[in-house]
């Protein structure tokens, strides 16, 4: 094979790979967004906590959904994941606090 044709084929192969990688980027979830989703799913699957802070859980669900949307701007993506992470943690803390409040009432004999 002559040299120019070899270079041309190699260039085409690289371009195809780059296009494939670019296409696939949108469908592959950001690992950080995935981690927040796992945390939210864990909270929702916990029978003791899932229904204890409905408003905070709703906000967490919305924030996680927003964080999962692929963004062109990596800084925006980081911001949305940050918000989602804090909202999920907030929902968990509030749910745990409400469970503890019930325990407290029981212990105080109310």
């Amino acid at each position: 094979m002559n040299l120019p044709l070899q270079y041309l084929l190699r260039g085409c192969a690289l371009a195809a790979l780059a296009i494939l990688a670019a296409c696939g980027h949108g469908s592959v979830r950001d690992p950080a967004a995935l981690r927040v989703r796992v945390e939210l799913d864990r909270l929702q699957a916990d029978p003791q906590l899932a229904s204890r802070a409905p408003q905070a859980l709703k906000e967490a669900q919305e924030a996680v959904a927003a964080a999962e949307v692929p963004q062109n701007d990596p800084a925006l993506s980081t911001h949305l994941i940050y918000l989602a992470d804090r909202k999920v943690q907030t929902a968990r803390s509030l749910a745990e606090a409400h469970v503890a409040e019930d325990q407290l009432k029981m212990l105080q004999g109310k």
Partner: protein
Amino acid sequence: MQAHHAVQGLCAAAAVALCACAAAPTLPPHPLQTAANDIASAEDARAADYAPAEMREAREKLEAARALLRLATPGLVDPNAAKERWLAEEASAEAGLAEARALDIRTQSAVRELQAAPVAPPPADAPPADAPAPAPNGA
């Protein structure tokens, strides 16, 4: 007569202006103001005592947003507007987390204290549980 018309016109203009003010939709609060309010609310809940790292983070983010806002030139488009909003939103989220953590930690610790508290002994004049019932008076 001319003055009368002028006064009438002014009154009409004032009435229109008043109506416009009354009908103007209320603007949503600026994210920086919301963040400041959320931090104040968390401080009221003594979140700094129970979630100091989150409170520090919230304050630092709000301060960073304010610093960016100070760089803006009045009358010109603020190139950092998005960054300021993001920082303020993150400060709000962090303050909310601090407040929730504080409530959680405080309540859990109250539960533990009650669980660890020794059961109060019965009053000295109370009969033991297995003591025979006292004889009725006059028996």
